[in-house]
């Protein structure tokens, strides 16, 4: 009996829930983990979206309506990402979703967001090799991060390379791209060392000692690190303790930003590098006011900003502009309105949304300072256009993405066979 009543409660709750969806606000879904392993990175982005929503509402909302953020917790659980995505779109009827971190979470929600014709903004750097009709990628693709970083080091005379990464798709792909890029630049196979470690690897003694030995062959050596969040702290600690300083063997990282540094004692890391599209230390008015607004919103004047936050910022601004331009939040109208849209980025330039759903952004290289900030030591002359498909892998070199060109109108157009493959919608 008890069970039957429980069931009826459940059914009623669900029906009531789904019918409560119609109201006069524009709903912004936030799909970031607030618990589990990814909460470390993702809670910041949730707060960023909440801040953007608040600011937009203060400025009068959109299309005369107020914005309403709908926050759910996918709890770092990948199938739960898909479930929550469906909940946001089907049950809460959100008009746009900001969310996901790491490719697996994005891959998990991809079929759902495509099926329901939702609109997702993915704000984290990733390995590329994707361009979905329903996703805008505001983080960096490999040609906006990895390749410029290697170019910079090569100019500095580095001849020997350690590609160290956590064993998942982003490092694997990035390192594949870098390996073929380095070989193209005449680097010998023997001068490349590739190493993969599991997530949250904590004992780096052997690997750092190997790197030390690899680097003592008389050629200038650098480490290109795609080591994921949690494993970085013990890695850098071990580097410092074994006496590998940035002058001897610099480490350039693609996943270490201000946020990660705020959890590390930076003194031994000074001089190591990171490549991003944004650093908090960038000097521009937009950046100053963004930092000020962020610190006020979060109530902590030591709170840092980072690249995925800028990506969220750009994504949100662009979406808001596209909605005003289109006069509706309807996905099919907003999407074309996004192409070619320009929004000032936080580093003093302009971000442009391309028809492959990736941004044009500048690439910056920063050196870690002892205060946990980066000193920008190099930047590209202008904005670099994000590649959905890399030119350095044979299978991917022939694929292009263009959602505006009526002759292509797909995310993975094979220029040889003139066909689109793998499109669900």
């Amino acid at each position, binding site marked *: 009996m008890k069970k039957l009543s429980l069931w009826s409660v459940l059914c009623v709750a669900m029906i009531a829930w789904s019918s409560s969806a119609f109201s006069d606000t524009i709903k912004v879904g936030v799909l970031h983990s*607030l*618990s589990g*392993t990814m*909460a*470390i990175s993702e*809670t*910041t982005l949730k707060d960023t979206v909440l801040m953007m929503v608040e600011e937009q509402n203060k400025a009068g909302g959109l299309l005369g309506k107020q914005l309403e953020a709908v926050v759910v917790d996918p709890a770092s659980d990948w199938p739960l990402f898909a479930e929550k995505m469906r909940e946001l779109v089907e049950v809460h009827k959100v008009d746009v979703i900001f969310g996901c971190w790491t490719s697996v979470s994005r891959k998990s929600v991809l079929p759902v967001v495509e099926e329901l014709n939702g609109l997702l903004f993915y704000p984290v750097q990733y390995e590329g090799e994707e361009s979905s009709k329903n996703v805008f990628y505001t983080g960096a693709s490999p040609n906006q991060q990895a390749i410029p970083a290697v170019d910079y080091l090569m100019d*500095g005379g580095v001849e020997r390379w350690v590609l160290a990464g956590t*064993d998942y798709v982003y490092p694997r792909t990035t390192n594949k791209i870098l390996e073929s890029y380095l070989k193209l630049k005449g680097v010998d196979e023997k001068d490349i060392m590739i*190493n*993969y*470690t*599991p997530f*949250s*690897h*904590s*004992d780096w*003694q*052997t*690997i750092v*000692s*190997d790197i030390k*030995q690899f680097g*003592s*062959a*008389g050629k200038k050596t650098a480490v290109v690190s795609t080591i994921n969040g*949690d494993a970085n*702290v*013990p890695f850098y*600690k*071990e580097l*410092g*303790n*074994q*006496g590998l*300083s*940035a*002058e001897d063997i*610099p480490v350039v990282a693609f996943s270490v930003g201000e*946020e*990660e540094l*705020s*959890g*590390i*004692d*930076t*003194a*031994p890391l*000074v*001089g190591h*590098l990171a490549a991003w599209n944004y650093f908090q230390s960038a000097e521009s008015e937009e950046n100053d006011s963004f930092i000020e607004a962020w610190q006020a919103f979060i109530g902590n004047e030591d709170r840092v900003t980072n690249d995925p936050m800028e990506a969220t910022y750009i994504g949100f601004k662009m979406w808001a502009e596209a909605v005003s331009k289109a006069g509706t939040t309807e996905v099919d109208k907003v999407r074309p309105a996004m192409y070619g849209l320009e929004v000032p980025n936080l580093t003093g330039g302009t971000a442009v949304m391309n028809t492959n759903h990736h941004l044009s952004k500048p690439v910056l290289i920063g*050196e870690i*300072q*002892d205060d*946990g900030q980066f*000193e920008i*030591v190099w930047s590209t002359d202008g904005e670099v256009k994000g590649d959905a498909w890399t030119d350095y892998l044979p299978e991917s070199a022939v694929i292009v993405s263009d959602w505006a060109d009526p002759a292509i109108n797909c995310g993975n157009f094979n220029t040889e066979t003139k066909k689109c493959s793998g499109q669900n919608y």
Partner: protein
Amino acid sequence: MSTSFADAIDEGNTVLSFPELVASLTTKKFDEKAVIIKKIQESEHPQSLIILSKLLDGKIYYKKDDKTVVIADITKKTASIINASTGEPLGQTTKKKLKKVGINNKLRRALNSSIAQLSLNNEDPKIRKSAVVEMFKNMDDEMSSILQKQLGVEKNKHVIKTLETAISINQLKSSVHDDKLQAIESLSNSLYPEVRVALNQLEKNLSTSPQTSQTLTLIETTQNSLKKIESRVGIYKQIENIFFGISLGSVLLLIAVGLAITFGVMGVINMAHGEMLMLGAYTTYIIQLLLPNHIEYSILISIPTAFIFTGLVGIGIERGVIRFLYGRPLETLLATFGISLILQQAVRTLISPQNRAVSTPEWMSGSLDINPALSLTYNRLYIIIFALLVLAGLMLLLNKSKFGLQVRAVTQNRSMAKAMGIKTDWVDAFTFGLGSGIAGIAGVALSQLTNVGPNLGQAYIIDSFMVVVFGGVGNLWGTLFGAMTLGIANKFLEPSMGAVLAKIIVLVFIILFIQKRPRGMFALKGRSADN
């Protein structure tokens, strides 16, 4: 100012005064700074060394208003400043009024080499020695003759040896056959990587040059020297590997020994053990937050604090939850798992979902250089010692004290112990508190190795169970043995098959091992063990 300096460099003949040089550090261009650094070094001004080392430390600023270059000592928002070129104190100012003179890696290398050359006469033989080592990379005849002179006045035999090595490296380039041969032979005792690089380079050059009998001898000698060096390096590599293994083992020991009490002695499958580690690590963070100026002592203060704090949390958990579950060991697993979720989220809510920075005190950073091929990091060394001390202390407590006697009595026969007037409730609570407290101090040690964040405990919980089960439940020697075996096995498998596969193999090994000895390595045998 900076434009005139750029012109000056272009012309290359203008001599700038020392204050002018220092003032031109305000330039934004790293290439210009490099030239200035070289000039400062060559100026032989008494302030040169100070300026260069402060620049390396990131302590050189300039005032935004009048561009005076200063050495600043910044605490929070205020800064006490000293005029860089004169050394005259300029009093206090605020951080906002200063701008840092930034450097990059290239400049750091230039600074290191300049500082090294200025430090050849330093009072400290260690600094003199490392100054010479710094020069290995770019030896030339000019440098060699400077070092020759130095050799004449040097008294310290370690420094003399290093000087000789440096000169020999240069001598490898000599055109005189005998000099070359002598240098090759003398270098065969050196373990410096630079020496190997130089010898390898020499071998390569020789093999491409005309094959006279002289070159053949040289090639042979070089190869012999290299072989000799390599074999010694190989031995040290093995020693290093054992050290890595022991150090990993001692980390495992630390994280497992608390569990050996709560799980091994009391039979509570404590899934919240990892969170006790986490709380210990956060205690270190809080202590450092409270005493920002005493980082050196923070660890020492944290150890007892963490012990008491996590111990109290442990007692709380025991009194609040676990005491209802004695005799239902598998259910303690479920309840403590719930507790671990709550503790994790509590830390996320109360402190932050982000990782927190815990600084490493000076005395725990860096490494003990035994020779150029073998250096042992201090933090690992201390942790090994610390782990063994904790284990020894615990054994003393359990085997020699009255409390230990009561603990053993209660775990062996609860009702009998009760009948004899032992307050079993409090013994249980304090035993659990002890196990938790020890997990807390292990957390303090972990804060020096890894992330301090809400997920810290999760990363270690399985490893700690493996150690305890592998070693044999209820036996601290087993825990020691288990931790060390797993640590060393991991480190010996890792170079050949990578970290992940090594870990998988070790896990499979444990699973198979438990088939052989279902109660771990150091298990009790006989009838009583079966019940």
